[in-house]
């Protein structure tokens, strides 16, 4: 079964994977066992590039408690291929530093947490 835990384990090793449906070819990100397009449970891990372009973004100054020490930061939706999108955080000081369509790369940072979840942190770096 494809699981969120294994998705993050793979990400921790530096690789971004979705789940590809063997019946209809749809790629789920985050990966899941049942294909949201055709309901098939025949799937396989599918390696995705760790680059994409910003589809939308926000610049957060009032952060949830667990993220206050990092604020302000941008959170961007990144289009990887066609309908496959992922999300990451970017340390910037002004929303004017980024725009829709900018090319970005996912940068994975390990998380030393000893309690669940020990999923890595996901940042974005602008590609020039």
């Amino acid at each position, binding site marked *: 079964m494809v699981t*969120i835990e294994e998705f993050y384990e793979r990400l921790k090793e530096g690789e971004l994977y979705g789940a590809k449906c063997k019946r209809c070819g749809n790629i789920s*990100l*985050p990966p899941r066992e049942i294909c*949201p397009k055709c309901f098939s449970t025949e799937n396989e891990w599918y390696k995705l590039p760790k680059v994409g372009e910003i*589809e*939308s*973004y*926000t*610049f*957060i*100054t*009032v*952060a*949830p*408690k*667990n*993220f*206050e020490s*990092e604020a302000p*930061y941008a*959170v961007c*939706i990144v289009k990887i291929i066609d*309908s496959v*999108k*992922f*999300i*990451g*955080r970017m340390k910037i000081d002004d*929303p004017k530093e980024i725009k*829709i369509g900018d090319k970005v790369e996912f940068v994975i940072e390990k998380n030393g947490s000893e309690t669940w*979840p020990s*999923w890595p942190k*996901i940042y974005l770096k602008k590609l020039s």
Partner: protein
Amino acid sequence: MNKPLASIVAAGCSKFGKRTGIMARELLVEAFLEAISRSKDPDIRRKIKVGFFGNFSEMYEHQSHVAPLLADWLGFHDLPVIRTEDACASGSAALRSAIFAIKSGLYDVALVAGVEKMNNRKTNEVLEGLAMASDFAIEQWSGLTFAGIFALMATWHMHKYGTTETQMALVAVKNHKNATMNPKAHMQKIITVEDVLKSKVVAWPLKLYDCSLITDGAACVIITKPEIAENFTDNPVDIIGSGSCSDHESLIEREEISEIKGIGKATKEALEMAGIKIRNVDVAELHDCFTIAEIIEYEEIGIAEKGYGGKLLEEGATNLDGWFPVNPSGGLKAKGHPVGATGVAQIYELFLQLRGEAGQRQVKGAKVGLAQNMGGSGSTHFVHVLSNRI
């Protein structure tokens, strides 16, 4: 117009605001006493045979298992009770569940309640609690707040359609103005476009005045099967349509991030059930959790083409005296947004509007009302259509 699903015979709402010193259960008592005082049957309390309680977070009062507790404080000790939780749509989930109960024939009279007490916690803790209504594995993990999620929609809407920060500000200006005529609203303060634009950025492009309020409040309605409604009031309000659906919890999985398609689907279902068109609606309460949401809602319910929601505000179309008045109560934006109460409070406002009891903010001659309430970033949806019998 089709046969009603159920009828609203009584409604009550607490004062919304920072209600220091009052717990959730006590807020609901305030709403409940108003509701039963509206009934011409002084014994309506004993006719209630089932209760549905909308409530979102255990975090605010460190309290789960709220349904029997809330019922207890209303004086019920042997009532079948169910709590509903669909984030900001928890109250509408309670209403729809009660409609199921009536429509099934199992019960004749049902209590629908919604409540949230949010101001015991610091703002950052409240935001963390609210963020729990987004996908933990993806959205919460990225540091998104709800303002952040709606900001992602706003950025794309601005990019794709040219929607402006000023148009978004007009939602806040309108709803704040309406709230000055609602004595139960959290804020009674006229604001200007400039006030909104100059307010502190929370999640760009959204600023403080683009966001709904952190509010304590409760609302309740009593619904019956239509045939017996007039035992309790001479002026019942019928529920003639109810639509609902879900969508991906996480925004990144939706194909078009500035569309909230579930709103359109639930609206269509509710209007078809009612046997009417959107143009037959006289007054609407829409889920303006953030200003951009109200603009997207205009487009989804079908009063504006995609991308033209902002234009309606410039034309004043949704003002109290416009051709499609939206949020006469002041909306989540200024009346306030006690999460679990919001869906029921929308119904309370329409109950007043359709009975001609809304005072200064009355939409003249309103016969049909529509309430649209959603959970999270639009992953649960409820739309109800109401009509008076005049």
